[in-house]
């Protein structure tokens, strides 16, 4: 794993959740991108509540994953709380595009 990023798999109410912690930027985004590409079919819930920083490099990885999931009619939910992640989503308008929830409970509620 890149220094400032960790990616862990866990379960919540019987659903697989991929929890990302740390910073998603030019240095760490490739690690996340590779993870999302390699395990695409089973990444349906991506929890970014542990992400302390994200910039457009990270955003592009999320958009690619979203696009790939949409193209295959696969669910791809992103969990984010008020903070740097939701701020970036808001200023770029991608909060209207992505499937966003604010908690794991909300993410699994309509799974």
């Amino acid at each position, binding site marked *: 794993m890149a220094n*400032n990023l960790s990616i862990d798999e866990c379960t919540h109410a019987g659903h697989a959740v991929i929890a990302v912690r740390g910073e998603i*930027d030019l240095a760490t985004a490739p690690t996340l991108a590779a993870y999302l590409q390699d395990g695409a079919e089973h990444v349906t819930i991506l929890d970014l509540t542990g992400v302390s*920083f994200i*910039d*457009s*490099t990270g955003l592009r990885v999320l*958009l690619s994953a979203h696009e790939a999931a949409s193209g295959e009619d696969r669910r791809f939910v992103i969990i984010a709380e008020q903070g740097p992640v939701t701020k970036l989503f808001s*200023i*770029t308008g991608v909060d209207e595009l992505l499937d966003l929830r604010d908690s794991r409970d909300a993410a699994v509620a309509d799974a």
Partner: protein
Amino acid sequence: MPDTAPFRLTIPPRAEYVATARLFAATVARVLELDETLVEDLKLATSELVSLAILGGTDAPVVVTVVPHEPMTLSVTPVDPSAYSGPAVAAPVDIVGAVFSEVEIASGGVTVTFGLEPTV
């Protein structure tokens, strides 16, 4: 207010140092006792512009400068905005422009002018 020297960081143009540039910008912003929202905005702008400089393929060191007196500015060189070719919604300079109203592209770099309060 007495003039104070600019804060300047020079880093190799490598992805692993983008975080260093953010840390520099955040530290300077906190030393200047800026609002925490503005600190986060400056971290984002720094990250976007330094990343863009590196994406442009430069071999030259990337320089981040913060001028701490009115007008307060954050500058990154060398930055070529045309080096970006990804989706428009995630364009680095546009993201910087969404949080800072004064963004100037000149002299091979990008300069953001900011005040004491965040705009977004």
